[in-house]
């Protein structure tokens, strides 16, 4: 026979009449031999009756109206309405796209573009070729420009380095 602990789970289901025959038999066998659980079962049933004394409340008069009002205030379901809650996101995305396009259209002031592969250059238009044919000169110009900037930043230090760099630049020229 099952003990009180084993029977506890099945007791509520037994009182609800929601047990299968085997479970019901187990509970009934236990109750027959256990006065404490039998009392508990009787008091559970009495408790459920007592709990019915709590009266139900009715929603207030304006409850339905308030729900309908809140539902009516919801955004419409048109395609525009679907976007409405994400307006800030949409605006941010549009601004980002506009900024990207604007930056892409700016004239390039930085000559350090990666050199295209020879095969790609051969396949490009004549205009593209004109743009890259003097790339070596541009790279040399960039090196000289950078060296000048370095010499301005650290004038007191490494005059020899500057001189050697200048020599190297001259040799490159």
């Amino acid at each position, binding site marked *: 026979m099952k003990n009180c602990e084993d029977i506890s789970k099945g007791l509520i*289901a037994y*009182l609800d009449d929601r047990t299968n025959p085997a479970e019901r038999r187990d509970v009934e066998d236990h109750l027959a031999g256990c006065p404490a659980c039998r009392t508990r079962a009787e008091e559970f049933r009495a408790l459920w009756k007592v709990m019915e004394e709590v009266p139900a409340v009715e929603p207030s008069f304006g409850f339905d109206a308030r729900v309908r009002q809140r539902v009516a205030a919801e955004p419409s379901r048109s395609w525009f309405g679907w976007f409405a809650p994400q307006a800030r996101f949409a605006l941010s995305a549009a601004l980002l796209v506009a900024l990207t396009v604007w930056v892409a259209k700016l004239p390039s002031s930085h000559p350090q573009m990666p050199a295209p592969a020879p095969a790609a250059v051969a396949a490009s238009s004549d205009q593209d070729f004109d743009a890259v044919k003097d790339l070596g000169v541009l790279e040399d110009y960039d090196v000289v420009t950078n060296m000048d900037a370095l010499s301005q930043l650290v004038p007191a230090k490494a005059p020899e380095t500057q001189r050697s760099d200048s020599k190297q630049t001259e040799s490159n020229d």
Partner: protein
Amino acid sequence: MARSDVQLMLDVKAGDEASFDFLLQKYRSPLVNFLNRMVRDTATAEDLAQEVFLRVYRARKQYTPSAKFTTWLFRIATNLALNSVRDNRHRRMGISLDAPADGEDSAPMELPARDMRIDEHMIERDRAEIIRRAIWSLPEKQRAAVLLHKYEEMDYEEIAGVLDCSEGALKSLLFRAYESLRVQLAPLVTQPIGQVRGGGGEGRPL
């Protein structure tokens, strides 16, 4: 032929506002009562019930009938109620740890002694209020389980779905909750049923 809740919700999904109104009429009272017993404040319960209906409406386009409609409905309600109770508790704790407050953080429930006559106690305290307070004193999950079982008359599978636990865990939860209520409400419970309401028991005879 009456449409099922699931069919009504699918009709709402298809744009039928009248079906939403039908669901509102059908579940407004059970939801307000459940929430009122959960949060023990009628105004808060109504606010939360409105929020439940609003969430149902907002979710209509994504609705798929994977579970019973009431399981979904009461799961939303339970989660909102638990959040409300916790928020309220934290707010009160923020005001003062020593401040007196009603509800579950208040002074222990005033219970009649076991040997006290119920009618004597009734002079001071309404029976219904004692029962409400006893239910309120249960841990939140036990309280929700008892309310769904006793007052909403849901079956175990559905309550377990609402509370996101197994049926076995739910039966243990219910047993502990009713055992606690049996002890707390002993003066009311031990009075013969016939004297309380003049009715008999329900379910299977012992």
